[in-house]
């Protein structure tokens, strides 16, 4: 029987390796095509001389992106919106999560439920009234408008995630600090926050990448170049009459890089934070 088991195990391991190779190819080929295209001259991209592997690799497409498109402006806008909404949602979420995790007051459970509920309502149900609201407040075509709009997703999510971590910080530590003369805010800043560092990292990662990747609000609220972010900027490149896949893929590679690098660096925490509950996928 033991022999049968090992035979079974070995077969499974072999099958697993085979499946893994297929999965790696399935994941890698689109990346390859994106990067390869960005490194080709047009001659190798279109028509009879099109190649699968760049014969004469070039960075010309990258140069074109910077020279002939407002890509740098889009990049700057994306960074501004991502940083702004991350900082704001962080402050709001830390306070809210602390209140829900530690303070006892009527309506606490109801508010906690409300937070999770709003996090799960998809933006495609909200973008029409949000567009009307933003137009009425004259916040369309503005980075401030986007920063504010993104709070609607970031705050509920970050609060929910932090709430769990704050609860895992032993109450005794905080009480000791308060006996020593620390008030609530002091206990939050000196005791709870340092102990929740992994959660703060995850929350920063999610709100930053969310703002960086967001498309629908940015697309609907923005109609001028000055307030376009990277995602809507690239879609705008595509919808122009001339398709220029070389530069488009070059800018796609550059725009995908920041979130991918962040993900690889923070992966351990991100996966943990994500599997604690659920994350918009």
């Amino acid at each position, binding site marked *: 029987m033991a022999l049968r*088991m090992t035979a079974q195990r070995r077969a*499974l391991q072999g099958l*697993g390796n085979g*499946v*893994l190779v297929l*999965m*790696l190819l*399935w*994941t890698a*080929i689109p990346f390859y*095509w*994106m990067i390869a*295209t960005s490194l080709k001259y047009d001659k190798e991209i279109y028509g009879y001389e099109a190649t*699968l592997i760049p014969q004469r690799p070039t960075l010309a497409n990258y140069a074109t992106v910077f020279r002939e498109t407002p890509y740098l402006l889009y990049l700057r806008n994306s960074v501004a919106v991502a940083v702004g909404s991350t900082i704001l949602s962080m*402050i*709001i*979420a830390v*306070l809210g999560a*602390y*209140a*829900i995790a530690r*303070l*006892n*007051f009527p309506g*606490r*459970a109801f508010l906690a*439920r*409300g937070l*999770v*509920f709003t996090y*799960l*309502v998809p933006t495609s*149900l*909200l973008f*029409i*009234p949000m*567009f*009307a609201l933003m137009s009425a407040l004259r916040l369309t075509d503005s980075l401030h408008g986007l920063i504010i*709009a993104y*709070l609607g997703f970031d705050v*509920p999510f970050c609060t929910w995630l932090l*709430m*769990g971590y704050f*609860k895992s910080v032993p109450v005794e530590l905080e009480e000791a600090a308060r006996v020593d003369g620390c008030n609530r805010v002091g206990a939050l800043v000196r005791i709870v926050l340092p102990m929740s560092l992994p959660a703060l990292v995850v929350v920063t990662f999610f709100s930053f990448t969310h703002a960086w990747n967001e*498309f629908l609000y940015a697309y*609907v609220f923005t109609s001028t170049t000055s307030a376009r972010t990277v*995602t809507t900027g*690239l879609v705008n490149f*595509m919808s122009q009459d001339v398709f220029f896949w070389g530069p488009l893929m070059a800018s*796609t590679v550059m*725009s995908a890089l920041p*979130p*991918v690098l962040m*993900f690889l660096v923070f992966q351990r925490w991100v*996966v*943990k934070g*994500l599997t604690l*509950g*659920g994350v918009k*996928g």
Partner: protein
Amino acid sequence: MATVPSTTVSLPLPSSRRGLGWRGDRIQRVLTQDRTLGYLFLFPAILVIVGLVAYPFASAIVMTFQAKTAGAPGRFIGLDNYRELFNSDQFLRTVVNTVVYTTAAVGAKFLLGLSMALVLNQERFCNNLFRSFLLIPWAIPTVMSALNWRWIFDDASGLINNVLVRLNLIDETISWLSNPNLAMLSVIVVVVWQGTPFFTMSFLAGLQAIPKELYEAAEIDGASVLQQFTHITLPRLHPIFVTATMLSAILTSAAIQFVLILTNGGPADRTMIFSVLSYHLALGGAQRLGMGAAVSLIFFPILVVFIVFLTRRMLREKGE
């Protein structure tokens, strides 16, 4: 619910506070009360929820009974928007498309994600490296993935046609995104490529949380690998199956950017799903905000069942 009562204990005032007048004393006391502090701390979050989710949502409901364009006040027209939708072939096609698209995409992501998780759960050289790599599609902005795939599917010079022609498998290139019979399939492929890692991550975490002793005990009892899978692995993963599937169903059905970038709902509405139809009606020229909102809201009752269920589950995990 189970907040430790000790957090509400009012600490004995340190003697230094005696110096304050009775008024300052009272303010101090009120401010340090849980109730005041709780509402104070939560106020910004409540403002966000009400202003950016609850109010827009309520105004969407009102809009569905109006003929409204952006910037102008709406005119009440009763149920006309809904009546028009239910009499339109386009809307009925959209309902069918949304259901087919969501079921197929979530089902495929589930199966692929489960296989990936099982494979990654085996012991192997460099496994962590493979795991990181397989998760990358999830970290890439969805817009970038959609653009990249649009180019892969390109009629004339895309990767797929390029390779198929080279291998002499086809004489004429295939229009993956504009052929009415292939467009939906192509969109689903992209959605699956991007969304599988989410399932992989969730399932892998679930697998790693199963105690090894269970398998060892089963092995001693002579259970086959298949029996171990159906009697230990599957039941243990069940809660994660439910959570991940529901979450993905909400987000997949509501995702707009893949269809918008790949096919824009075409050809001949073959890939029109509710989020895209709602966008077209509300902002694609005619600016019928009420109609657009009505399309989304008709789907909301289905979503709300999932949302309420998930809310309960996610709060239970946090000990609420």
